[in-house]
């Protein structure tokens, strides 16, 4: 299980409706379901994963988050989760606005391209960075739009998206990101976890 799942679970209140966008094989959905009384749905693009989820009794639909979120009414979920897939979309800006339309709040996690090991890799080797969270080569990575924690902060700022909670994750340790420590966290965090609302 991804270490951020526990943090995500803490951000979600009980007795709520949650949509996991790009729910994979349903690990987070199962974790949330067991943990608290959450009515959780998922949408996933991979056929294999969808079949796995359905086999586990999870309410998952096969679909593409970039096209198929449109079927959900405005604010029909309390939370919409997007875990480490924002960077893989053709149009992340549109996806974020859809998340914030469908959900009253959204939880977005991003692999931080500002992480020092990523920067060091590019600086010293001069090739596209490969790390534990970014394991693919430039030619086969699904990631089209990498960004740093700072980029995401600026993105939200420009669009008047309220960053309700911002959490940095580094070696299983989590810490708050604030405007004052942003530059440091942007260097030390592997992953950023954001609870946002419009």
């Amino acid at each position, binding site marked *: 299980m991804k270490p951020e799942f526990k943090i995500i679970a803490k951000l979600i209140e009980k007795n709520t409706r949650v949509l996991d966008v790009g729910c994979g094989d349903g690990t987070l959905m199962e974790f949330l379901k067991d943990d608290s009384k959450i009515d959780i749905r998922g949408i996933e693009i991979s056929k294999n994963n969808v079949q796995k989820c*359905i086999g586990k009794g999870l309410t998952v639909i096969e679909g593409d988050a970039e096209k198929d979120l449109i079927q959900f009414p405005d604010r029909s979920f309390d939370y919409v989760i997007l875990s480490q897939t924002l960077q893989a979309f053709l149009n992340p800006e549109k996806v974020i606005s859809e998340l914030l339309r469908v959900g009253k709040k959204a939880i977005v996690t991003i692999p931080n391209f500002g992480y020092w090991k990523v920067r060091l890799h590019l600086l010293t080797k001069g090739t596209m960075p490969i790390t534990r969270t970014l394991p693919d080569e430039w030619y086969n990575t699904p990631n089209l739009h990498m960004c740093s924690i700072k980029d995401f902060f600026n993105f939200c700022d420009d669009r008047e998206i309220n960053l309700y909670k911002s959490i940095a994750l580094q070696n299983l340790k989590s810490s708050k990101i604030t405007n004052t420590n942003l530059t440091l966290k942007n260097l030390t965090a592997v992953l950023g976890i954001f609870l946002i609302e419009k």
Partner: protein
Amino acid sequence: MNKDVNIKTLKINKPLKLDCGQIINNFPLAYETYGVLNEKKDNAILIFHALTGDQFVSNVNPLTKKDGWWSYAVGSDKAIDTEKYFVICANVIGGCLGSFGPSNTNPETNKVFGITFPIITINDMVNAQFNLLDFFKIKKLFAVIGGSMGGMQVLQFVSNFPDKTKIAIPIACTSSHSAQNIAFNELGRQSIMADENWLNGNYSNQNKNPNKGLSVARMAAHITYLSKNGLQEKFGRKLQERDHLKFSFDADFQIESYLRYQGAVFVDRFDANSYLYITRAMDYFDLSKQYDGNLSKVFSKTKTKFLIISFTSDWLYPTSENKEIVIALNAIGADVAFAEIESDKGHDSFLLNVPKFLNTLKDYINISYLKD
């Protein structure tokens, strides 16, 4: 029909008002069951059959002596496990395997109904079968499941009886019959009616049978159940028991011979007028019509859990039409799961050995039974 075969029949005494306005009374509904209904009566699954199906879902069909039409999915330890569940399947009204249909004799005239039989709809079929719940004293079914026209009946069932099943699995179907599908059905009907032995539907009163028309209808329909790639892979341009073209209109190609065979075996087991009636029922199916085209409203009262399944190579009831049902259910926050299964076997995929489909079905059914 072979009179020696024991067909279970429920005589329905409750009058049924059909969509066409007529009321039918004291009519037979033929059914078959598999497995055992448990004491809590919470393990019953009602399966709806497709256009040319019947009540013999599993084991050996006593009439054709072939495997039941859904033997891949239904049986001991299969996706729909008859060791765990009590499976019921009825022949639709309008059909020709024991349920009230155009080949029955009209008691008022002592002649076979033929096309004087009332036009029936998917709604009528479902309402007739609902009597099975009373008969078995089942308050709530565990599941309603069906593919193609069976899937339409699943949707209609939940629409009519929002709290009478825990889960619903419509497979490879639609909520509204498309122009293309009406067109194919019309082709089949015209082929039957063009046969000189159809005699305006009166063939059985004169000991005739429109076999040519019915078999051409079946041949045309059969093509729509397969996919281009599936056909190409199985038959290509292979010749039938010959090394060279014969320069004639014989069945030179294997695909021709295959289709002729499909047509020929079909006429032995199916009534031409039933084919007219059932295809008509499919054409009339447009579930959201009474809700001004808003499909979500059809299901607004239901707490039933849905699993919707489509197949990549099904062009008769394509994924897009199945997805419309998913979208309508999501719009009202219903519990709906959806999977499109990869298969090159076309619309017929749901009837065949497609392991990914059967495994998904099996796991979902078993886990849904355990969950509240």
